[in-house]
């Protein structure tokens, strides 16, 4: 993570080291804080984050916040596991969510009345190893094609295995797997006479499991196996020439990732007390990927942080319109503040946008009163503040839909043009974004969330493929 300011280290390529030096820091005091934070080592940071996580419920989180936290931690655990196979071994596994489902269904069958006359009710210390070993074997089986299939073919085959899992649980043996109705009445986690019944206890459990998993993976990252994974990612042929058993290394990555996913699945099933096939469908996979990409592939801390951020935004903040609006305008403003330099240009753009809004609103109101009939759909002081700025016509739905299409076209145009035109075009784009938000997006939080996840994947890959915490990979031309 940290780079020695004295120059290249022994054994490090000089050019690579200089590239690494060109890290982007945030402006002014934010950058200072960033540099200072970088001096803290990895292990103290993990300890601090873990303790902070454990302290969170003491602040008096409500039921809803606690549930968001639990979901976020489950996805973070999954993202950390996905990082093994995607980030380190460089194998695009699009069937990863099936292992999560396997863990959840495995735990559900072993801890409910589903199998046998009286059902099986194993204690957690027994069912967890069974499920994890099963998942590892399944991971080996799924990984088998990776020995022959290269890159893209592997992605497709794993995608189908993921889909096949959903089809399988939906259609096969409905008396045992429950079909679309899933399995309900799953036991809570019980071991050594202790039962985890409250959401708070699951929150603690998840924080501890996540921290322990991250610690184990950190040790694994620089072990022989971890280095072999990355060697295979960079160049399988060279790795094979260096006597690394490429096929076995790939399979071990699949198996390790599957075990982490199954672990997450058992906790998920126990906490929800029910599992359904739709819990393990593609949208969840895309959420996990979004978290991993946002945080940065190849970095454990990045995967966990990215997933937590994505889930807190997705599940927590975008549920209620008031918080979603604050987030929308806040993030928009922050992006402009950070990205728009020099600040004279920033002031010009902001001033022009505000002026454009008031002028457009005044003109629209003068022409026809129905053009501004509906107020902004954000509530509270934000809505009041925007009342005379953003136009919301009498039929916001149609206008918002048209606005959305125009906004997407404008955004594409914005990327194509350069220089002054981009600054000029930015003004109507910002205003139109606010217009679409107030007319359409704020009242459709569930769709807005999905749009946002899609946009994160596209924009992050183009603007910052290494993610927020990942390190830029130096590409060697072949």
């Amino acid at each position: 993570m940290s780079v020695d300011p004295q120059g290249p280290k022994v054994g490090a390529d000089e050019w690579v080291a200089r590239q690494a030096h060109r890290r982007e820091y945030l402006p002014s005091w934010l950058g200072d804080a960033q540099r200072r934070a970088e001096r803290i080592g990895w292990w103290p940071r993990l300890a601090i984050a873990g303790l902070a996580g454990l302290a969170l419920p003491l602040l008096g989180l409500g039921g809803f916040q606690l549930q968001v936290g639990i979901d976020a931690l489950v996805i973070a655990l999954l993202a950390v596991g996905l990082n093994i196979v995607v980030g380190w071994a460089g194998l695009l596994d699009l069937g990863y969510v099936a292992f999560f489902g396997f863990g959840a269904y495995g735990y559900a069958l072993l801890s409910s009345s589903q199998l046998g006359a009286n059902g099986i009710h194993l204690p957690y210390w027994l069912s967890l190893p069974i499920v994890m070993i099963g998942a590892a074997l399944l991971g080996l089986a799924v990984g088998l094609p990776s020995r022959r299939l290269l890159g893209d073919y592997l992605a497709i085959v794993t995608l189908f295995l993921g889909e096949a899992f959903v089809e399988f649980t939906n259609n096969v043996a409905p008396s045992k797997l429950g079909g679309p109705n899933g399995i309900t009445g799953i036991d809570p986690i019980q071991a050594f006479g202790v039962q985890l019944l409250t959401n708070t206890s699951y929150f603690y459990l998840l924080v501890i499991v996540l921290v322990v998993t991250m610690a184990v993976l950190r040790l694994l990252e620089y072990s022989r196996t971890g280095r072999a994974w990355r060697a295979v990612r960079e160049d399988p042929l060279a790795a094979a020439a260096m006597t690394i058993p490429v096929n076995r290394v790939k399979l071990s990555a699949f198996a390790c990732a599957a075990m982490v996913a199954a672990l997450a699945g058992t906790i998920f099933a126990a906490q929800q007390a029910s599992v359904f096939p739709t819990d393990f469908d593609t949208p969840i996979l895309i959420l996990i990927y979004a978290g991993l990409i946002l945080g940065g592939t190849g970095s454990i801390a990045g995967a966990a942080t990215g997933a937590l951020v994505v889930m807190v935004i997705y599940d927590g903040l975008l549920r209620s319109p008031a918080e979603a609006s604050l987030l929308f305008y806040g993030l928009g403003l922050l992006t402009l503040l950070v990205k728009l330099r020099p600040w004279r240009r920033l002031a010009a753009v902001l001033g022009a946008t505000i002026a454009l809004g008031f002028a457009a609103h005044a003109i629209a109101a003068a022409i026809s009163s129905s053009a501004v009939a509906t107020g902004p759909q954000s509530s509270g002081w934000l809505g009041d503040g925007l009342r005379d700025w953003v136009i919301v016509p009498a039929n916001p739905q149609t206008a918002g839909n048209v606005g959305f299409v125009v906004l997407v076209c404008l955004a594409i145009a914005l990327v194509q043009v350069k220089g002054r035109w981009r600054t000029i075009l930015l003004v109507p784009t910002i205003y139109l974004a606010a217009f679409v938000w107030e007319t359409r997006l704020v009242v459709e939080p569930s769709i807005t969330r999905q749009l946002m996840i899609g946009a994160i994947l596209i924009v992050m890959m183009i603007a910052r493929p290494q993610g927020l915490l990942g390190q830029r990979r130096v590409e060697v031309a072949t």
Partner: protein
Amino acid sequence: MSFFFQELVNGLTTGALYALVALGFSMVYGVLKLLNFAHGDLYMVGAYIGFFVIQWFGGAQHLSIAVPLLLVIMFVLAAGLVGGLGVAIERFAYRPLRDAPRIAPLITAIGVSFFLESSALLLFGAQYRVYNTADFISLSSGIQIGSVTIDSVQILVLVLGVVLMAGLQLLVNRTRLGRQMRAVAADREAAEMLGINVNFVITATFFLGSALAGVAGIMGGLLFNQVTSTIGFIAGLKAFTAAVVGGIGSIPGAMLGGLVIGVAESFVTGYISSTYSNLIVFGILIVVMLIRPSGLLGRAQLQKV
């Protein structure tokens, strides 16, 4: 036996549709080596365009123009608009990543797919839109061979599918643009050095491939009658299967794969059970992949150092 032939005809019809989607997918893979996960969603957009064209001319029951003219307008509009959308996606999402690590454009493609799907949900809502094909194309007026009926929609899909595939084959093998496409697919850098406008060829490929998906979307609307924002995902999966079974990047392979998948699906539904049809289609894919990792008609790739 007549049941067998009936299922075969049904399978060939859906197979022709899958083949058209798979063709675009395979062409894009050929020139960019990119799995365009958003391709299935272009099919969905095409199906929506068809629906709105029907609505524009007064709805299925009260059409204000002749049916052949309506079909022409539907197909041309869908091909043009969806083709344009494909080109826009390439410009915005894939071009900046052309020299990035392989995994980056793949993930972008997943993002584009998700974005298109939720945009459709936002713009058109979650309800099923119904074509009501039977109201303007008489389904009984088809060909009757023994006890096998091929209704007029099936004839339309089969004929148009064959014409488009033959046209594409001619385009790729006989024209200047086709030659350039094959050159770019074989080696982009070498093609650039020989003075081929690679950007133009990629744009043209995206336009053609996406237009085929748009046309297939209308066929799907006419055949299956229903349109909603999630149909693209399933269609995309089937097209992937078709393209991969035939060998990605190979155009005859995509056609063969589409027909194989369509017929297999139809037989599984007819003889075994419709619940297992998807599972068995995926099973075919996995088995083919394990036996012939580069597909039925694909050539094994040499790994270069």
